[in-house]
């Protein structure tokens, strides 16, 4: 697991973005300045990111997200940790998720 992402933490989408689902794609639209690098950027998630994103809802710990995904994909949790941490790191850098107290 990554140094920055603790398995016991809970993350939620930031209030500084709007998340939309359009024709099956998740589209993340910055609401305040400082999310994208340019004034006209939107963001979308790859397939892996999409599945993980749907579980980052402020109610599950990172460990629970990994466990649920492992069950759904019938894959060892160890395999999924890297993806979950990778996505969370990207989202944190972009201020698209926040840690819940």
């Amino acid at each position, binding site marked *: 697991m990554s140094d920055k992402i603790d398995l016991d933490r809970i993350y939620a989408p930031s209030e500084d973005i*709007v998340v939309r689902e359009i024709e099956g*794609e998740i589209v993340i639209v910055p609401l305040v*300045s400082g999310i994208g690098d340019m004034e*006209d*950027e*939107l963001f*979308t998630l790859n397939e*892996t*990111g999409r599945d993980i994103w749907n579980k980052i809802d402020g109610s599950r710990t990172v460990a629970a997200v990994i466990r649920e995904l492992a069950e759904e994909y019938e*894959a060892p949790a160890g395999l999924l940790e890297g993806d979950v941490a990778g996505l969370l790191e990207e989202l944190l850098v972009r201020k698209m998720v926040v840690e819940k107290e």
Partner: protein
Amino acid sequence: MTGTAYVKKIRSGEARLWPSRRPPLTRLDIELTERCNNDCIHCSVNRPAGDREARAREWGAESWKKLLDEAAALGCLVVRLTGGEPLLRDDFGEIYIHARRLGLRVMIFTNAALMTPGLARLLKDMPPLEAVEVSVYGMKEHTYEAVTRTPGSFDAFRRGLGLLREHGVPFIVKGAVLPATRGEMDEFEAWAAGLPGAAGLPSYALLFDLRSRRDGRKNALISSLRTDADEFVRVSRRHGEEAVGEWRDFCARSGGGRGGRLFSCLPSGGSAAVDPYGRLQYCLGLRHPATVYDLAAGSLREAVTEFLPAVRDMRSAGPAYLERCGRCFLKGLCEQCPAKSWAEHGTLDTPVEYFCGIAHAQAVAAGLLEPGEKAWAVTDEAARTKRRR
């Protein structure tokens, strides 16, 4: 599961999100008001700022918010707020915030004169995700106000632009080539190049539309201000032959006229426009009654999934259209379209001689026609466009 870049950036202009399935609506143009604080000599829209009858008929903020909700639910990504002057409405901020909270990007077309510190701050803190587009009607007070016919408008515009700059709100400027401003193009371009975020040459309004509400009051004046075909080509060539090369390439790519098909401008699924009174149109210039849908009596979904596709399929049976535009290889390059035909002639399919003349001058400049040749009479267009590439 594997993944590398989980979060992908998309620039607004290249939102190729839906390679196979597009949402029924991707962009909505909203004309918030016909009214304007200026009274530009070439304007195809404006009514006086204090026009009470127009104000009383305009949709209120709640109706616009409901429409924006529907638009977002249909997958719309971009909304353009225009007018008249959209900032004339005191509920502009409320409508803007609602659109942004729905996750819409917002294009704002304005003359900037009514920009306030509060609004500039809002655009800084909650950015529109599109550069604000500011029309500039002159470089000096006397040229600017010869166009806007509104004393004090030059200072107001400069103040407004200053607020955008001060707050770091991205904007682009657009000029207009009019008798008062023709001599200022170099000055305008030098000034525009020094603005923050300037990229390339600014665009100009050159081919002025007549008023699509066909009120006639100003159409003679607008016609008299229009750039003629030779001047259009001259202005387009001011910085070299790039524009001419683009016209040539465009003709090589576009399939030209398609028999009776009227619409060659619009992609399938995509954009729609709504006037200040809740009437949906294909674009803001197209107000022929057969192409207008009253949203108060229906829904945005029905309008974009049933009404607009039927409009898009409309065909002409008019002999003039079929003989000319229907087989003309300049169709597409030429600005003639149902909206222009409506503004000029009150029909959907009458060739508009002004735009026809401009397109022919472009084709001559691009080496696709000899002077005096008629594009619709040409039968070897494929060879011509290939030969000249």
